[in-house]
Each structure stands twice: as structure tokens, then as C-alpha cells.
């Protein structure tokens, strides 16, 4: 479904992603694991096309010169330089890190804004699906998103991404800053979303809760892919254990 070949991203003279290649097949949950500033967010922004918007804004402000090289293909089609808006229409949707929501609108209105692209009738069905996966959002409907807690905002952010009926769902550090209980709820929700036939690429620092549920995983360190393998292989690989579990 998604192939990335020798992707290189430069921020001015420093290298954010160095010759990274990975693929994601239909219906899989693939993990991208790495400590902070390992290039995970840059990778996610590049796949979702947000990097094009960031690059345009930086050029305008005369800030850092961002160069993106390499190839990103989605279902065979080269989307490396495709605008973010078009990629969302194709089904590539990103839920960014630090639970990005619209603070001034109510929870329900956030979902309505997220359904911007949906002109088809069964939008109602998607609302119901979001409220079933995240039942707590149902009774928070009228509250302003800005006043919800971190965990609730994270659920809302993923719910908003679901409104666009993604085929490839990119999640950037969904578990960041959540308490252990919420991390467990969220991993259960990710499995439930995959059940609906959505392919998921999730990037995360906390490998422990994710490893049991991912089919395959890549470990990256400072933008360079260090290790890859199935979920089970990674769990009992001593190197991964030491680096991420802090055991």
C-alpha cells in the first residue's frame, strides 16, 4: 500500500531523515519506534504532505531551507510532491502529536469540522463509530474541547481523523503524555480501528504497550533505520528491550 524509498530530509545543513526505506501492506498495523528527535514526526509529516506546507511557510519567513529527496509511493502512485489536501482525499490521514484539536469549538463541532470533506450520506454512521470506539466523548459532546483533559483531547483528535474515513491512518505519538490506563484504552481502540479495514502506521516512543499489537515494526535512531522485524521478534530482541523499556 505504501512504499518509501531512500527518503532524505534536510533541515538547512542538518539531516533529519537519512536514507530511510519502509513499506506498509494493506490491513497491517506497522510501528515506527524511536526515542525523541529520532525523526519520527518528520517522517509522518513527509508522508502526510504536511511537510510541503511547513516548507512553504519556512521559505516565506526566510527561515531554514528544507529539502526533501527520495520517493513516497501510495498504491503505486508517486505522491512525493502531492499537496496535503489531495492526499487526504486519497485516504492518507495524519493525527498529529500533542493531541491537536480546535480548542474553542465544542467536541461535537470539532467532529463536524473534521467531516469537511465528507459529502456522502453515511456521515452519520461514522459519527456513531467514533462514539462507540471512544464512549467517553459521547457525554462530553457539548463541552469546549479546550477544557477537556489531555486524554480526552487525544481521543477527540483520533476521532476527528476517523471522520475523514482514512484508508491509511498515520498516528504520530498517540500515547504521549497519557497515563498507563489511558494508554491501554488507546491501544485497544487502535486494534478496533484496524478491524474496520484501516491500515495503520503509528510512531511512538513508548514501545511497551504497542509491541503486542503491531504486525511489523521499524526502530529508527537519529533518522537512520536501525532495526526492523515482526512484533514478536522486536519484543525479545535484547537491544530493543534495553533501549526502550529501560529495563
Amino acid at each position, binding site marked *: 500500500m505504501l512504499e518509501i524509498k531512500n527518503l532524505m530530509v534536510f533541515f538547512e545543513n542538518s539531516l533529519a531523515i537519512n536514507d530511510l526505506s519502509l513499506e506498509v501492506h494493506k490491513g497491517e498495523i506497522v510501528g515506527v519506534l524511536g526515542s525523541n528527535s529520532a525523526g519520527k514526526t518528520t517522517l509522518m509529516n513527509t508522508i502526510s504532505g504536511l511537510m510541503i506546507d511547513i516548507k512553504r511557510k519556512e521559505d516565506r519567513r526566510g527561515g531554514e531551507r528544507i529539502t526533501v529527496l527520495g520517493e513516497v509511493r501510495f498504491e503505486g502512485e508517486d505522491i512525493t510532491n502531492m499537496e496535503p489536501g489531495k492526499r487526504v482525499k486519497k485516504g492518507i490521514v495524519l493525527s498529529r502529536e500533542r493531541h*491537536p484539536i480546535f480548542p474553542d469549538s465544542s467536541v461535537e463541532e470539532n467532529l463536524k*469540522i473534521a467531516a*469537511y470533506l465528507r459529502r456522502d450520506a453515511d456521515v452519520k454512521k461514522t459519527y456513531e463509530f467514533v462514539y462507540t470506539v471512544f464512549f467517553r466523548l459521547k457525554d462530553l459532546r457539548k463541552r469546549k474541547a479546550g477544557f477537556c483533559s489531555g486524554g480526552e483531547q487525544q481521543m477527540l483528535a483520533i476521532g476527528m481523523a476517523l471522520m475523514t474515513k482514512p484508508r491509511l491512518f498515520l498516528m504520530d505519538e498517540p500515547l504521549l503524555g497519557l497515563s498507563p490506563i489511558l494508554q491501554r484504552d488507546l491501544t485497544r481502540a487502535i486494534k478496533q480501528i484496524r478491524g474496520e479495514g484501516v491500515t495503520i502506521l503509528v510512531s511512538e516512543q513508548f514501545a511497551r504497550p504497542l509491541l503486542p499489537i503491531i504486525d511489523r515494526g521499524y526502530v529508527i535512531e537519529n533518522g537512520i533505520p536501525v532495526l526492523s522485524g515482526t512484533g514478536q521478534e522486536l519484543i525479545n530482541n535484547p537491544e530493543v528491550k534495553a533501549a526502550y523499556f529501560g529495563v
Partner: protein
Amino acid sequence: MIGSVIVYGLVSSAVLALTAMGFSLTFGISGVANFAYGAFYILSGFLVWMLLNYLKFPFVLAIVVTIGVVGVLGFVTYWTILLRVRGVALSEVIATFALGVGILELFRWLGFVTYEFTIPTFVKGMVVIAGVPLDYQRLFIIGIASALVLFLYFFTHYTRIGLAMRGIAQNERTAISLGIESDITAALSLALGSAMASVAAIVILPLGIISINTGYEVLLIAVAVGIVGGLESVPGILVASLILGYAQVITGTYFKSEWMAVVYLAAIVLVLAIKPSGLFGKFKELEERV
């Protein structure tokens, strides 16, 4: 005496609300600075006048063409000027403010300063309400103002484009990642805001002559109403217009009328010093929470 204060207070509030609405839609609700708003307002007035006198357009056609042209001008302004400075708030303000000053001073240089520049009123004659004479034009203004306030509220809460506008104001990157074209939405909000400015001009300018300095004053009013009411809330516009409208009429009848302009400026300074996000504004409150 009291009757006329109440009625004329309502009229001036309607005038303020109508004037401020286009600006609030672009700057408050969608977060795109349009400080050339006053210039678009005066430009619409002169455009209608030119179409009527030079090209002998029928009145209704002149109005529709003007609203269309000014709307398109707003759209074009975004793509030519604002697109390259989007995100840097101060550059947006300076660029659009410079555009506004440029347009107004160009008209002054072209000689649009004499007394014969005025637009005819829609309907002549007047009616007496509770002993207070009120011409139809002012009644018409109240009608239009309330209609537009309702339209603005529904537009921004129930239509796709209106919601998208509020989306890009609150968190542009998230809106983009949900498929909202941030540039097109911002351009549409600028177009709609400018069209509203021309509607306000066409309805209000017939009450007097079209003078260049009103351009700066309109921007002042729009900013005052926006700040007092809270830039991003439609009820805020309504309440702020009522407060400033009645304050204006009261100072007009009981004190010297030149003090009116001082009232707006004093209101701005007062509200900003006490509650910078305005009466209904929310940004400040949430900002503290983070």
C-alpha cells in the same frame, strides 16, 4: 427626548454592527487580517457612484456589480498579497493596512473629494414611530443589519465553509491535515468579508456624502466593535454595537457631538486594558490554561 435617544441609539448600533461585520468575519472568525477593510468600504461607494454617473447603470445593477467586484477584489487581494505573508500576523496587518492607505490616498489624488459624491437612497419618505421621525432608509439599515447578523451566526456554525473558516483560525495545521484547503478558505473569507463591507457601504453611505476620511474611521469602528465584543464571537459584535451605538448617541445629544469619535477610542483602550479578549472573547481564558 428619551424616545429619540432610544430609536436613534438603535439606528447607530445597527450602523456599527453592519460596519464591523465584514471585518469580524475575516479577522476575528477566520484569523486573516484585513486592515484594508475601510478602503473596500469607500471603494464600493465610489464604484456605485461611477457606475451610476459614468456608465448610467440602473441602480440595482450597479449595486450587484459593485458587491461582486469588491468580493472578487478581496479574493484577489488574498492570492496576491496575503498569501506570501500568511502566518506572520504583523506582516499581514502592515501589508493590508498599506493596501488600504494606498487605495484611499489614490482616490484623494484622483480628486474624489468634492461634495457631489453621494449615492441615492433606496426608498424615500419617512414614518413616525412613537413620536420619533424615522426615514425608511434607516429602518432598512436596521433590517439589513439584523438579517446579516443572523446569517453570519448560521454561516459560521452550520455550513461547511463557515466551519472550515473557524477551523483554520483555531489550528491551521490540524485543519490542513483534515483536508481543509487553508488558503482557499482564507481567500473565501476575505472575499465574503469585503462583499459585506460593500453591502454596508451601499446601505449606509446614502445618509451622507462619501468622504475619504470615513475610510479610516470605518476601520476604527470595525476594530473598536471587534475588540469590545471579542473578535471571534458573533453575539459579541451585537452587544458591542449596542453599547457603542447608545454611548455614541448619548454623548451626541447630551455633550458636544465632536466627542463621538473620542468615545470609540476611549472604549478600545478601556476594554483592552481590562479584558484584552473582549466581553465575549475566549482566547485569553484558554491561553491561561495551557
